[in-house]
């Protein structure tokens, strides 16, 4: 799903923005190397794998020969990314010119990863100590509950029945950008807040984690440590218990916050305490590549615009309320309809028709998901039509020019405006011109010069 990729790439951009020393420190962890490899654009991945067992540097020229001429732009993007992440380093040699070589730590770690397989710094604990582990379904239910509680609290504290243990200052950090708070008014969702709600769970997770990490510096926690711990966590096995005594103090504190988000489950025995990663955590590394993990859909949309959502979750109800009119709620079913008014409401809040349609398509119920199209076309077409109905008139601040002394001056002015991309309308017969206001100053200069 491209959306998740964009958000995850933002996370990788953050990693790439770390100072050189921290990046090199990060690469000492083999799992980070693998996670970063997963997040690279496909051509970059190919280059890394090709260079993996080559000891010497490869010249830029020979690398360019690996690509067909129409792939040059993708080649440049890949090389830029590799240089930015300091995976490739440039060396200049008078005889052979510039060449690229792989970062040695990165290279050796990845080689080990490929040949010996990844070895986590901790082993799952034996069942004798942990007794009975929660089953995978229990774990998933727990993770979902925590995550939904967190989201509900994020968007509207009044709605959440159970308050999570996340401190209010942390909540405020996550809410920054998603909610606006005006005096004496309850906090309202911003446009990005609405879009956030309609995003896929993995995209939402990456966003929250990114905010968490960018905020870590203020709490005196090293962001590189945090990133390496999080990426390492995503490679653990779901459902296995890992002892907490293998973690540092910082990592333990982080785990407590992650437990509130539903990424891990903390449990305590008589002597030891352990954590169990849930699917949310392990999906983090999977979602770095383009593979989509399809979760259970729950929405059935009919051609008469009626919507049936088989869900009991409050969060789903809130999300559906964003763009549809909820008519009634039954114990396992939410019945609603998509109406013009409900959609206008959504459009006013900054949600686009594409977001609504992709949300409906991604969450289509299993019964209708296999149908092509999963959402009836008359509904999707109508949603798009209603959106364009709101934008029938386009207004641009502009200047109107007429009374040109001669046709040549008029033609010259037209070309000039066209070069600046500011020509809105022209009438050659009557020699009249409409140009955008931002180009007006340049136009005035041009006309003054023409007169001389």
């Amino acid at each position: 799903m491209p959306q998740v990729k964009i958000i995850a790439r933002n996370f990788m951009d953050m990693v790439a923005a770390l100072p050189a020393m921290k990046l090199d420190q990060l690469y000492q962890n083999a799992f980070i190397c693998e996670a970063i490899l997963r997040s690279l654009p496909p051509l970059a991945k190919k280059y890394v794998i090709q260079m993996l067992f080559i000891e010497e540097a490869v010249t830029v020229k020979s690398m360019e020969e690996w690509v067909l001429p129409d792939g040059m732009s993708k080649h440049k993007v890949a090389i830029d990314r590799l240089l930015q992440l300091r995976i490739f380093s440039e060396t200049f040699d008078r005889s052979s010119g510039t060449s690229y070589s792989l970062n040695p730590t990165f290279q050796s770690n990845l080689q080990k990863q490929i040949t010996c397989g990844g070895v986590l710094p901790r082993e799952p604990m034996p069942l004798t100590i942990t007794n009975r582990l929660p089953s995978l379904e229990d774990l998933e239910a727990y993770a979902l509950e925590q995550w939904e509680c967190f989201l509900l609290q994020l968007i509207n504290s009044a709605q959440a029945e159970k308050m999570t243990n996340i401190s209010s200052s942390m909540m405020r950090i996550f809410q920054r950008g998603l909610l606006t708070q005006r005096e004496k008014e309850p906090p309202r969702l911003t446009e990005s807040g609405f879009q956030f709600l309609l995003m896929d769970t993995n995209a939402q997770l990456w966003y929250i984690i990114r905010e968490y990490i960018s905020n870590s510096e203020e709490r005196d926690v090293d962001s590189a440590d945090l990133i390496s711990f999080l990426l390492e966590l995503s490679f653990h096995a779901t459902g296995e218990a890992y002892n907490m005594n293998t973690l540092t103090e910082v990592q333990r504190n982080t785990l407590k916050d992650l437990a509130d988000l539903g990424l891990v489950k903390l449990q305590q025995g008589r002597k030891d305490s352990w954590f169990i990663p849930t699917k949310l955590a392990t999906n983090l590394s999977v979602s770095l590549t383009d593979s989509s993990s399809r979760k259970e859909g729950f929405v059935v949309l009919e051609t008469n615009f009626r919507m049936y959502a088989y869900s009991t979750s409050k969060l789903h109800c809130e999300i559906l309320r964003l763009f549809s009119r909820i008519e009634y709620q039954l114990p396992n079913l939410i019945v609603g309809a998509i109406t013009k008014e409900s959609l206008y409401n959504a459009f006013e809040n900054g949600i686009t028709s594409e977001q609504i349609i992709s949300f409906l398509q991604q969450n289509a119920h299993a019964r209708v998901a296999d149908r092509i199209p999963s959402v009836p076309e008359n509904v999707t077409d109508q949603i798009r039509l209603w959106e364009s109905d709101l934008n029938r008139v386009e207004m641009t601040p502009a200047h109107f020019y007429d009374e040109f002394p001669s046709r040549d001056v008029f033609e010259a002015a037209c070309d000039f405006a066209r070069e600046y991309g500011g020509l809105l309308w022209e009438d050659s017969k009557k020699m009249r011109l409409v140009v955008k206001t931002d180009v007006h100053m340049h136009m005035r200069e041009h006309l003054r010069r023409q007169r001389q």
Partner: protein
Amino acid sequence: MVNATKGLFVSCDIPMAQFIINLNASLPASQKFIIHVLDNTHLFVQPHVADMIRNAIAEFREQNSYEKPTG
């Protein structure tokens, strides 16, 4: 000498253009806002009327829609 007038360039479909021209005609002379009618889909109007035009269009749209009474 070339003459420059500042204003707002309006681009829309033909029915909307006619609606705006009609709106202009219904106003008293001091409040008329269309400077030039460029062709049947473009107009050049005074800069401050953007919101007024949008409100008028929204009202026109609401008059044309039926909402099922709830309850």
